[in-house]
């Protein structure tokens, strides 16, 4: 018998965790002399109270869906890919090269081309740690985090020395040509009140499609079956003739590709140029998103929405309540990560006991 019904595992526990995190955050806010209720109101209103807020919330959500799915796919093969940050950075490089050097006639073609480039570059960056893990047993956590630093240094070098516009002081590429500009939400959903300045763009739909694709991959294809089997038991995988090397490589390539695809949203869709350090921690947020979403695409989608709202609502809170600094916002986000990710068992164990005690005794 399973200890808990599925709905409790998937919905109830994350919900309780988030509530606990918000309570703790409220205590912190009260401690510095502000009203937690008011802070909460500002955050929710900032994230969901207007088309402006929604635009940013869903824009961040798009990023987190990509990085969250990336971590989730690797999790299914029991690998902890914490290199989403670097893989997304390289994805940005792929998008920049594709957008700068090819004269795209239409945004839709550019989107396809840039998506492929972003995925390829992200996958390539994940391939090296994957190979080292598969063939040499170098721990993927160590190698992927090191590759984040290498990616960061590489991009600084390229943006300063190769891509920087002649005479400019900013370490960023030139603005991409008109043909690559993705339609923003004001174009396809202007009737909902989105302004042209909103960062939300069509890559949101690519992210939703990626959720469906990952679901199909993991639960409906033979490859996904093999990935999950390998993740549960490597010995059993070998018994069934599933190659650990192959699965390690493929799972990490898919993971890296998904992380890289974040670039179509941020680089192609919003900035329309590659700026330095554009990922801004989204790779790491992806870890929390995948943990909270139980590595399931629907969970990832919901968790990404929560973190998108935290980012956007947090920015508003910082603006509206001067006593709450940028660091405070980080603290609140960190508390959510702490409660949903690291302290999962704190909620889970008492809940399991509760459910067990509620169940009728069988003879």
């Amino acid at each position, binding site marked *: *018998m399973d200890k808990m019904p599925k709905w409790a595992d998937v919905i109830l526990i994350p919900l309780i965790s988030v509530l606990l995190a918000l309570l703790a955050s409220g205590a912190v806010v009260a401690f510095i002399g502000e009203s937690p209720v008011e802070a909460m109101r500002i955050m929710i209103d900032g994230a969901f109270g207007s088309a402006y807020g929604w635009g940013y919330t869903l824009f961040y959500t798009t990023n987190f869906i990509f990085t969250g799915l990336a971590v989730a796919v690797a999790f299914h093969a029991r690998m902890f890919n914490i290199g989403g940050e670097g893989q997304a950075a390289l994805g940005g490089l792929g998008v920049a090269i594709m957008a700068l050097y090819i004269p795209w006639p239409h945004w839709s073609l550019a989107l396809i081309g840039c998506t492929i480039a972003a995925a390829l570059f992200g996958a390539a960056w994940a391939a090296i740690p994957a190979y080292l893990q598969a063939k040499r047993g170098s721990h993927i956590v160590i190698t992927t985090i090191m590759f984040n630093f290498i990616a960061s240094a590489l991009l600084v070098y390229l943006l300063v020395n190769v891509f920087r516009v002649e005479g400019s002081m900013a370490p960023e590429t030139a603005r991409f040509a008109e043909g690559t500009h993705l339609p923003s939400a004001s174009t396809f959903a202007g009737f909902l009140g989105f302004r042209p300045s909103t960062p939300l763009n069509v890559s949101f739909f690519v992210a939703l499609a990626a959720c469906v694709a990952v679901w199909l991959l993991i639960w*409906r294809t033979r490859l996904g079956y093999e990935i999950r089997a390998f993740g549960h038991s490597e010995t059993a995988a*070998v*018994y*069934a*003739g*599933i190659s650990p090397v192959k699965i390690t490589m493929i799972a990490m390539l898919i993971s890296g590709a998904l992380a890289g695809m974040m670039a179509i949203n941020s680089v192609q869709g919003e900035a329309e140029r590659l700026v330095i350090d554009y990922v801004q921690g989204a790779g790491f947020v992806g870890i929390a998103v995948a943990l909270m979403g139980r590595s399931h695409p629907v969970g990832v989608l919901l968790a990404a929405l929560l973190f998108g709202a935290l980012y956007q609502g947090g920015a508003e809170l910082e603006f509206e309540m001067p006593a709450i600094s940028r660091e405070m916002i980080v603290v609140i986000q960190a508390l959510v990560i702490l409660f949903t990710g690291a302290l999962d068992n704190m909620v889970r164990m008492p809940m399991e006991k509760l459910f067990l*005690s509620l169940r009728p005794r069988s003879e």
Partner: protein
Amino acid sequence: MTAPAIELKGISKAFGPVQANKDISLSVQKGAIHGIVGENGAGKSTLMSILYGFYKADAGEIWINGQQTPIPDSQAAIRAGIGMVHQHFKLVENFTVVENVILGAEDGALIRPSVAKARKLLIELEKEYGLEVNPDAVVEDLSVGHQQRVEILKQLYRQADILILDEPTGVLTPSEADQLFRILGRLKDEGKTIILITHKLREIMDVTDTVSVMRRGEMTATVKTAETSPAGLAELMVGRKVLLEVEKKAATPGEVVLDVKDLRVVDSTGVERLKSISFQIRAGEILGIAGVAGNGQSELLEVLGGMIPATSGSVTLHGQPIDITGRESDGQSRRRRGIGHVPEDRQVEGLIMPYEAWENVAFGYHHDPKYQAGILMNNSAIKADCAEKMERYDVRPPNPRLPARNFSGGNQQKIVVAREMDRHPDLLLVGQPTRGVDIGAIEFIHKQIIALRDAGKAVLLVSVELDEILGLSDRIAVMFDGVISGERLPEDTNEGDLGLLMAGVTERQGAA
């Protein structure tokens, strides 16, 4: 009449909805050897864990030597004079015997005085009970049988008067088991009380004075051993009559199916696990491989099943070579060649425990075209196949959506057996087919193996259970230290003879 050494009154324990122990009462006289038998999941381990303070009973009382003694933790159990010898030893391998014995019972911060005191006491204990263990030997250099005696010494050093032994002979050769029983006899003569948990009915008959049978959390019977029989006990365990003997017709071996020549395996640490093994199996024949666990049988199965590469040697199936060293040496290729494999450890190898039954039914055969629907897997076809297999192989409950971990050991094994046997492989590799499987399922699985043989297939059976080897095999090979130390026909041998081969006494030494 003196008070019983142990008296349990109305012990109950539930884990959530599972009632592991139900109103159990038990009384064991001082200086007796009391056996507890029951199928897996009958509640034996739970009961002993309560007695040893690992679990707290929901209800009931424990009386030791006529006094009510609550046992909230294992410290209390030790104080009450209860010692436990676990199935898997809890020894520090690179410590000496003395160091292991005093571990956790040191007198002070400095080790030397405790060691000196303990060594003196150990030598006395060894003499008293005939244990023959050198106190200064390093544990990893000792044989398994001697390591077990260290565990017993540990308990005696802690002045245990009541010893609980959990499946003590699972890792022993027959002669080591006999020595263990002699030691238990000495302990009994000295007034110690012993509780022996085992699933081997013969041991119960040989050494115990009284025996209790557990079934589904209840103590169904407590009888004097002299007044019962193995068949009677088996019936009490299962709740119906069972066949302990396997019924089979004489084999009619055909052409050679599997031909293994000079097979060598050197593992990654450089240890030679298989040293030039050669044998053949014919169609319609079961070759049984006997041996104490860890003498190369696992590696043999793993090489033939494509799980690990061989270092050298050749293997042919129906005269066609099988790649055992290169790229084609994997489980998928083996299955395509018609080799089925029931692995030794179903929970780690044969099944993905969180996978539902239907997902496990396709495991290893998930490339089968009938399980595909375009680029996706045909889940409904697999589920239908699973439901049908569960029906024919009597898997209970017959629910394809239940995760493998929620089935009992016997039903888990039936899922593996159904998957591997239902394709009528030309060669079936079977490792420990009935380990941790209840008696009813053992009977079923044995019948399936015989049926496959009668259908003209070759079977390689690896088991540490000599009863099983003797009952099923048409020929028996014994493995010791990576070589085949002897071959026998089941009708020309017995447990004693096989036991010698298992202990590495080769024919020549045996004759000398």
